[in-house]
C-alpha cells in the first residue's frame, strides 16, 4: 500500500502538467459542487451534461412562465453549472436576471424600483463574470456586460471598460471598439477616444463593411477638430 501511495504521489506532477497543457479548463470544483444535491453529478460523470443543461433550461423557462424569481434564478445557475460551454445560456440567463426578475416584484415607489433594478443588474453582472471564468473570456460576454451597465444601470464608465475588454478579445465585433470610443467621448475624455481610434484604425479592413473604416476615419477627424478648438 505504501508503494502504491508513493507511486500515485509521484504521478501528481504529471497530472499538473496535463492540466497546464490542456487547451480547455478542467471542470471547476465550484461548478460541480453547485450541482450536488440536484441529481446532476452522476449525469456529469456519465458525460451527459448537454442534455442535463437543456433539462434545467427548460425548467428555468417553466419557472419564468410562472414568474417565480427564486426558482428561475436557481435553475439558471444549475443550467450553467451543468454545461458552461454554450454562450446562449449565459447571455439569456443574464438578461432574464437583469430585466425580467425585477419586473415581477410587487409595485413599489420609484426609488425602491431603481434600487431593485440596480441589485438585479449587479446579480447579472456577477453571473456574467462567472461566465468569463467558467466558459472563458469571450467578446459576447463582455458586450452583454457593457449593455447591462449602459441600459440597466446607466453606468457609462463601466460600460466603456467592458466594451474595451470585448474589443480586445479574439473575433470581437468591430462595433465594440467604436462604441468604446463613443463612450469615452460621452465621459468627456476625447483625448483617450482619439488615441484609441488611432490605435484600432490600422487593423480595420477597408473591404469589410462591418468594420466601418470610413466611419472611424470621420470620427478621428471630428475628435481632432474638437481637441484643436480647446
Amino acid at each position, binding site marked *: 500500500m505504501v*508503494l*502504491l*501511495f508513493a*507511486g*500515485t*504521489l*509521484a*504521478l*501528481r506532477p*504529471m*497530472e499538473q*502538467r*496535463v*492540466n497546464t*497543457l*490542456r*487547451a*480547455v479548463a*478542467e*471542470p*471547476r*470544483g*465550484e461548478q*460541480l*459542487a453547485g450541482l450536488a444535491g440536484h441529481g446532476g453529478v452522476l449525469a*456529469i*460523470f*456519465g*458525460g*451527459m*451534461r*448537454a*442534455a442535463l*443543461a*437543456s*433539462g434545467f*433550461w*427548460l425548467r428555468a423557462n417553466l419557472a419564468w412562465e410562472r414568474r417565480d424569481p427564486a426558482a428561475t434564478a436557481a435553475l439558471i445557475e444549475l*443550467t450553467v453549472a451543468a*454545461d458552461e*460551454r*454554450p454562450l*446562449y*445560456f449565459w447571455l439569456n440567463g443574464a438578461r432574464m436576471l437583469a430585466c425580467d426578475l425585477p419586473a415581477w416584484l410587487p409595485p413599489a415607489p420609484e426609488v425602491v424600483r431603481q434600487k431593485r433594478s440596480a441589485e438585479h443588474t449587479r446579480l447579472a453582472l456577477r453571473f456574467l463574470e462567472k461566465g468569463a471564468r467558467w466558459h472563458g473570456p469571450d467578446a459576447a460576454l463582455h458586450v452583454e456586460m457593457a449593455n447591462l451597465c449602459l441600459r440597466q444601470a446607466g453606468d457609462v464608465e463601466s460600460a466603456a471598460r467592458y466594451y474595451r475588454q470585448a474589443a480586445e478579445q479574439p473575433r470581437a465585433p468591430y462595433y465594440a471598439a467604436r462604441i468604446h470610443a463613443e463612450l469615452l467621448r460621452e465621459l468627456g475624455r476625447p483625448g483617450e477616444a482619439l488615441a484609441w481610434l488611432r490605435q484600432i484604425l490600422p487593423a480595420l479592413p477597408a473591404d469589410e463593411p462591418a468594420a466601418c473604416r470610413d466611419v472611424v476615419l470621420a470620427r478621428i477627424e471630428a475628435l481632432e477638430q474638437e481637441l484643436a478648438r480647446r
Partner: protein
Amino acid sequence: MDELPKSGLAASLRRTRLIGRHTLGEAVHLRLTLLLGLAGAGMLGGARWLGEFSFGSAELMFIADFGLGVLGLSGTILAVLATTHLFFSDIESGSACWILTRPVRRWEYIAGKLVALAGLLAVFIAALGLLLAGLLAWRGSQLGAAPVAGRLFLCACGVQWLKATLVAAMTLLVCSYARSALFASGAGLLLAVIAHLRPIADEAGLAWLRFWPNLGLFDAEQLLAAGQIPPVAWLLSLGTYWAGFVFLFGAAAAYVFKHREF
C-alpha cells in the same frame, strides 16, 4: 495450451499473450458485453430524439456530446463488471488454479487479463464509436451542417478508451484481493466515482483524494468542444499519466495476487 518455453522475456510475453487471447475470446462472447452494447446503441439512437431538446448548442454537437457520454458511461460499467466476471469465473471454475500449475507466473496472468480487458474495451468503444460516427454523418447530411472532424472524434474516442482501461486496472487491483465478485464490482464502481470526484476534491474539503487518479482529465466532451486536435505534448502527457497508473495498479494487483491463496 501449447508446450511453452519456460524462461526469458519472450516466453513471458508469449504466455501473457496466450492468456490475453483466451480471456478476450471469452469476454467478447459475454452476454454482459452484448447487453451493454445494445443498451449503448439504444441510447445513441435516443440522442437523435433528445437533440430536439438541445437549446445551448448545435444539434450535431449535442448528439456528439451525448454519444461520447454514452461511450464513457457504458465503457466504465463494462470495465468494472467484465473485469470482475472474467477474474472470478476463472477462480470459481478452477481454470485459474489449472493455469497457475503450469509454468505461468502470477504477474503474467494479471498482465494477460489486463491486456484482454484493454482489447475488449477497444472493440466495444470502437463499435459504439462507429455507430455514433454514422449517426453524426447521417444527421449532418440531413441538416447540411459541417461534419465533426474525423481525427478529433477519433481522439475523443481514444480518451474514453484510456479512461475505461484505467477503471479496469483499478478494478483488477480490487479483484486481486477480494473474495467475492459482488464486493469487487461495488468497490470498482465506487473507486471509479471517487476518481471522477477528483476535480471537486479541494472545494469539498476532500484533499486526501489527491493520491487517487483524476478521471476528470479524460474529458472527451471538452476535447470535442475545443474544436481542434489537442497539442501532441498534451496527448503524450495524458498517455504517460494513464500508463503510469495502469502500470501501478497492474503491478500492485500482481503483487497482491502473488500472495493470494486459493
